């Protein structure tokens, strides 16, 4: 399941619905990303994306992960728009027979979402607005796969 949406969602509900449909898989891994406010100055995070390309790019990552780790299920939900500190930005869930596959696939999807899905984050703070810079470590993380 893939959703790119502005609406908030409930990670626990997503996890339970996901777990209910993984059938005979023994291992479910989830990643939940939250808005951090390191300085205490953040008003909100503004997330922009490229409608159309976002769904294509994430769909391609999910297909690759599904095939490579033989996943039974795989879900990605990513929000865009205005998000307050501590709000849930996104979630990934993977299910496989064994834990190694579920962990690796979730890790892979996160690396690719970071650097290959067309999302851009802007921190809107009391002291001004800053586009979040990509980290070299994030682009380099792709070399792991």
């Amino acid at each position, binding site marked *: 399941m893939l959703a790119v949406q502005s609406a908030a969602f409930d990670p626990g509900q997503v996890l339970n619905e996901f777990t209910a449909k993984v059938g005979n898989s023994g291992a479910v891994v989830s990643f939940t990303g939250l808005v951090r406010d390191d300085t205490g100055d953040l008003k909100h995070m503004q997330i922009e994306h490229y409608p159309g*390309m976002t769904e294509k790019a994430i769909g391609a990552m999910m297909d690759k992960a599904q095939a490579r780790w033989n996943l039974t299920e795989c879900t990605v939900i990513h929000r865009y728009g205005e998000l307050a500190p501590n709000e849930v930005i996104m979630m990934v869930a993977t299910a496989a027979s064994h834990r190694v596959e579920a962990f690796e696939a979730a890790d892979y999807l996160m690396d690719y979402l970071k650097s290959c899905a067309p999302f851009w984050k802007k921190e809107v703070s009391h002291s001004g607005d800053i586009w979040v810079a990509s980290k070299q470590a994030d682009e380099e993380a792709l070399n792991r796969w």
Partner: protein
Amino acid sequence: MQVEVLYFAWVRERIGLPREMVETTATDVAGLVKELQTREERYALAFSDLSALRVAIDQELTDFDAPLKGAREVAFFPPMTGG
């Protein structure tokens, strides 16, 4: 040829619009960028450091030396920061 050019994040902010139709004689992305750079100061600024930019043709990530032939949509944006 005509191509729709899209801008995202600070590229969109510097240029001041999210998308526009562009008439171009360029054969590749780099040629299109050269044309855009000469338009106005705000374009020159947005395209001053190509190493800080990424490009997609028809919603697929590609390189600045990719041919434009057949492209309907070319998008310029900074490195992505999702997740």
